[in-house]
Structures are given as C-alpha cells and as structure tokens.
C-alpha cells in the first residue's frame, strides 16, 4: 500500500485534477458506451419486431431469400 491515508490517495500529491480528470472521464465514456450498446440492442429488436408486424414476410419471398442466402 502506497498511501498514508485516503485523503492522501484522493489528493494524488497535488495532481488530483489531472489524475482523477483522466480516470473520471474514461469511466464515464465506458459507462456511456455500454449504455449505448444496450440501448441499440433494445432499439433494434423493438424496431424490427414492429416492422415485421407491420409487414409480415410473405412466404414466397421468404423462400426466395432463403435460397439466395
């Protein structure tokens, strides 16, 4: 353990702004990215389900698409 106390840890030898500014923004961006990925997943699934309900795939089209895939 490098630190005499928690307050010494948070002070980072006077460089708190630079060190915690780096760590905080990085953590924030990772959090935001994870939320965006999650949101996109939900959004995609919901939208595609809606699209499918609005225009159910026709059986004949489906057969053609399968053979092309």
């Amino acid at each position, binding site marked *: 353990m*490098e630190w005499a106390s928690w307050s010494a*840890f948070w002070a*980072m030898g*006077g460089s708190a702004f630079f060190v915690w500014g780096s760590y905080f923004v990085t953590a924030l*961006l990772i959090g935001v*990215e994870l939320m965006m990925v999650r949101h996109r*997943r939900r959004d995609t699934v919901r939208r595609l*389900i809606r699209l499918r309900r609005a225009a159910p795939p026709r059986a004949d089209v489906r057969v053609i*698409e399968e053979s092309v*895939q």
Partner: protein
Amino acid sequence: MMKEKLSRSTEPKSWLRFSAPQMFYPLAGKMAPWFAAVAAVLGVVGLYIGLFVAPTDFQQGEVYRVIFIHVPAAWMSMFVYLVMAFWSAVGLVMNTRLSFMMAKALAPTGAMFCFVALWTGALWGKPTWGTYWVWDARLTSQLLLMFLYLGFMALTAAIEDPRRSDRAGALIALVGAVNVPIIYFSVSWWNTLHQGASVSLTKAPSMASTMLAGMLLMAFAAWAYTIAVTLWRVRSLILERERHTEWVGHELDAQEGRA
C-alpha cells in the same frame, strides 16, 4: 451469392462457417459476457496495482498514474484501427458481409479509446510539459486518427445502400491505416515533445515492474472490453442487415416472447 453459400456448405465443420452471420450471431452472444467478465476482473486488478501498489514516480510524482489509462487507450486506438482495416480488406477480397459488419462494430470503441488517449494526454501534458496541447508529430497524428474514426462512422452511416456503405468505409479504413505506423514511429522519426516508447519509467527495476504490470493488465482489460462491446454491437448490426431472413424472424419471435 448462391455460389458463395454452396461452396461454404461443403465444409460445414470448418470454423469458416462462423463467417455466416447466422452462425456468428449466437456465438457472439455466448462469448461477449465472458470477455466482459475478463475485462472487469483485469480492470479491477490493474487499477488496484496502478493506484495502490505501484510506487510514486521519482521524477513525475503521482501524476504519472495517468499512464495506466493513457497508454492502454492509445495502444487500443491504434490496434482497433488496424483490425478494422484487416476486416475491411477481408471483406473486399472475400466478399463476406460479416467482415464489414465487424469493421463497423469496432469503430465506435476505437474512437472512444482514441478520445481517451487524447484527453488523458492533455491532462498529463499540462503538469509535465506546461501545456495541454502541442502540434507535435505524435499528437497531431493521433488527432488525425480521431478524425479517421469519426470520418469512417459518419460516412458509413450516411450511405443508405449497405454494399456501398461497406465499401466506402473499407476504403477509409485501409487508406487511414497508413497513419497508424506514423503515429507509432512518430516519436522516433521526428523530434517530438512526446516522449519515446517507454516502459521503463524509472531506473529501479523493482519499481518499473509493478508499473509495467499495472499497465499491461489495463491493456489486456481494454482488449477484452473491446471484444465484448464489439460482439454486442455486431449482433445488432447482424439483426439489422439480415432482417429479411427467416432466422432473424425466429430470433425476433423469441425476443418478443421473452419481453
């Protein structure tokens, strides 16, 4: 396309079958949480070593602890771009849809790490160089990488037709990849304010080893994180692209049943 499928189906046991979006989709879904877990564990251990075990730097004091984010992020930002270029090349040569989707799924995470490298670099530069920014070769080429990421994302998002979008993006990825070695070697090719490749921050080997351990652990955490997020993201891309197929229909039904 029909031909592609036929030749593929002759070797169904090959790992190449995962180049079919339909096969890769469930695999990605199974793998992503494991990589996320690995990233979390490595990240926690890396942060612990970096913030609590690694000693104060004899020259820079505590501010050097930015390194545990800065260097892994900078490495990742370059590496991810090369991987994007790789998948783009594979996509262009083999005409595999999934390759382009991988390139697209990687871009936002690469951009995120690129921004983190620039941001933490600025915050590290102020106390050590006396300035947040300087137009030296390393910083300028890293900024260019940021614009390449943003350009790739903007361009691929702007083009409606998926095939044209794929190809345009692949072109940016491949041309822009030239910039990556320029970033990497800039510190030795030009006289930069940015220091050269340094893994030995101090003369004392015992100190360097804990610093290095923390940095490498964070780098591996960033790797695992990137893989996890990319796999999650590519799943959405696959659904979107393959939405007219039967199997996506079944997957959507399953998702609907769960909701």
